[in-house]
């Protein structure tokens, strides 16, 4: 990218620079620092560090393949990122209150639209109904208890589903999507009119003690969701690959990106094997990406991720549609780096994380609330987190220029390096026999656990400074009141599910669940396209999400729940 004259100037000036360092700092070595992924970082970068990059193929312009600088030729100038705060607690009507508060506080999607990013409680995540013993103590605590189509009605009543994106954060996607579809049908809508996002995390709740489905069966179920959506729900984004979840488990930036892409590749490979055209399903695969403390590294990770995804889509899958190659992203700002001590400092941290995400060109954003280390967000902390997004968008002037950090020798060098490092990790996974084997063997998990343990050791030793925790600590002045859902939630949720079961035609429900077993057996033999419709059939026959999930467990294995490896 540079002529020999410029490079010669650089060499000469860097020699002078080194001499100046030696003179001013008596030869002290400042070159031994590393980024949070362990990549050595120098104090200064020049054209010499990026001389081998090709402008067109390695950097380019926004909106052109390989989309490193942005998915779109104009992005925030035209459509700022979607505000997508995660919310959900208590009963569906309680969550609706928060939805309305956030909407009233100006939460916006593209072009004045809106996306509600609704998180379920853990029992709903794992297909456990409120009336089951395992759910006790967990109903509506850290998400909404919403196990039926009727609950969707209580939460979404009056919302125009053809104009609103409903993002559903739930582990066991099939039963849950089925109940959402059945609710939509009660409003006179068909699946092709629905817009929003499911997670399709069939085997990837990395940070939780339970992992949902065993790898190979989980992949079949994930593929079946996509098979259904690619045919019946063209506006629906079926899959959201966990990056933030991996980061919270312990993955550094390089591993978050590489493992995210490895997960997506495994799913896409499976879809191709099921006979789907990549251009029919790739646009529906998005990524949930953590933006953490190492400011520039995470920005560079993001840029590299866009390029790596675009080249994967084109070279590995032969995609032709731009939307297949463009990395659809939901930023989730870091949570493991937030502190219970001096919690208002988290507002500062999250604002920097959010700024990093905006400078990376993310397409949607959840900014963590300052009280997340104490409980789920209060109304006040949730709205403050939204205000961070609004201040960035309206006051900071950062939406004027696309990919504003491009051209920085450091940023371009590090972006390229992140891409190279991620490719190495992807090769390790390939060498280990592919993603499913690496998932099953615990290789991916043990790497993440190792990083998490190393991080904690560095914090405990003081090597990693955390303001207000291991440095600048002060005695706690006041007890921060945690958010608590209505104590009556469990009782009401249990009553409702019992009533739901009592008033249905049990023979119809049983028949629909039997049909689901047959469909699941066909899927287990590799025949796609029957399970998701059978789940919708079961939901129409008023089988609960828990019952549908447990029916799938008759065919597909659950786990690995209890073989969780400990860190080294």
């Amino acid at each position: 990218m540079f002529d020999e004259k410029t490079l010669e100037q650089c060499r000469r000036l860097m020699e002078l620079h080194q001499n100046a360092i030696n003179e001013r700092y008596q030869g002290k070595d400042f070159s031994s620092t590393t980024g949070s992924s362990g990549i050595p970082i120098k104090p200064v970068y020049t054209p010499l560090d990026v001389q081998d990059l090709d402008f067109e193929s390695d950097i380019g312009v926004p909106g052109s393949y390989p989309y490193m600088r942005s998915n779109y030729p104009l992005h925030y100038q035209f459509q700022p990122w979607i505000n997508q705060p995660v919310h959900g607690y208590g009963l569906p009507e309680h969550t609706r209150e928060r939805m309305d508060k956030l909407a009233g506080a100006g939460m916006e999607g593209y072009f004045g639209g809106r996306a509600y990013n609704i998180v379920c409680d853990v029992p709903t995540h794992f297909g456990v109904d409120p009336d089951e013993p395992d759910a006790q103590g967990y109903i509506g605590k850290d998400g909404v208890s919403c196990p039926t189509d009727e609950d969707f009605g209580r939460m979404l009543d009056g919302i125009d589903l053809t104009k609103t994106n409903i993002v559903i954060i739930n582990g066991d996607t099939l039963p849950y999507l089925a109940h959402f579809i059945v609710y939509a049908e009660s409003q006179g809508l068909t699946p092709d009119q629905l817009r929003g996002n499911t997670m399709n995390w069939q085997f990837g709740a990395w940070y939780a003690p339970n992992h949902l489905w065993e790898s190979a069966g989980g992949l079949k179920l994930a593929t079946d969701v996509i098979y259904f959506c690619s045919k019946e729900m063209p506006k629906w984004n079926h899959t959201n690959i966990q990056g933030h979840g991996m980061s919270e488990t312990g993955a550094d930036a390089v591993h978050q990106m590489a493992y995210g892409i490895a997960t997506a590749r495994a799913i896409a490979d499976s879809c191709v094997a099921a006979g789907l055209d990549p251009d029919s399903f790739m646009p529906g695969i998005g990524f949930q990406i953590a933006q953490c403390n190492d400011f520039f590294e995470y920005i560079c990770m993001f840029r590299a991720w866009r390029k790596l995804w675009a080249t994967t889509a084109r070279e590995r899958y032969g995609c032709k549609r731009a939307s297949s190659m463009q990395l659809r992203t939901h930023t989730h700002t870091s949570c493991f780096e937030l502190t219970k001590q001096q919690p208002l400092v988290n507002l500062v941290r999250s604002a920097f994380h959010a700024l990093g995400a905006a400078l990376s060109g993310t397409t949607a954003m959840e900014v963590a609330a300052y009280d997340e280390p104490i409980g789920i967000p209060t109304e006040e902390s949730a709205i403050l987190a939204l205000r961070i997004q609004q201040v960035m968008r309206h006051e900071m002037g950062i939406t004027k220029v696309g990919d504003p950090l491009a051209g920085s020798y450091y940023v371009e060098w590090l972006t390229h390096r992140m891409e190279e490092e991620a490719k190495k990790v992807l090769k390790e996974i390939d060498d280990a026999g592919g993603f499913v084997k690496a998932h099953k063997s615990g290789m991916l998990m043990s790497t993440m656990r190792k990083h998490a343990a190393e991080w904690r050791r560095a914090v405990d030793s003081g090597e990693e400074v955390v303001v207000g925790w291991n440095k600048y600590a002060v005695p706690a002045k006041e007890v921060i009141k945690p958010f608590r859902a209505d104590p009556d939630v469990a009782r009401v949720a249990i009553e409702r599910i019992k009533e739901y079961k009592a008033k249905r035609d049990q023979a119809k429900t049983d028949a629909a669940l039997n049909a689901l077993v047959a469909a699941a057996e066909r899927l287990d033999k590799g025949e796609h396209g029957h399970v998701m419709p059978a789940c919708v059939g079961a939901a129409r026959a008023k089988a609960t999400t828990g019952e549908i999930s447990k029916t799938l467990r008759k065919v597909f294995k659950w786990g690995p729940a209890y073989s969780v490896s400990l860190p080294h």
Partner: protein
Amino acid sequence: MKSNGKAKVLLVKHWMECHDRGVKSVAAILRDAGFEVVYVVYMSPEEIVSAAVQEDVDVVGMSFSTGAYDAHVPEVMRLMKEKGLHDVMVLVGGLIPDEDIGWLKEQGIREVFGAGADTNQLIELMETAGRK
């Protein structure tokens, strides 16, 4: 107790729990400090108590990220008494609001180590355990 005279600890988390990074970090910290650690993902309080008996542990550490301690802790303490595990120290960790710590101690929880707790304090307390 291990041959080095250090306590053996059982760390537990319910399968409906969400984030487990904290309890896994505690496991690593305690192993680094020479303690023997067993980790069990449980479905019912009975499983904790039978694992404590079977593994002959000196300490049980219960981790919660979702606030279910209100349902689980009293039951675990009752079952432990029933089985005669009077000498086993029970600790709680995770996402625990300060205002609930008093209640947990009333249930018989020796100490609570929540987000950002001091590792050295945990290790010091662990050093006193197991010296029956």
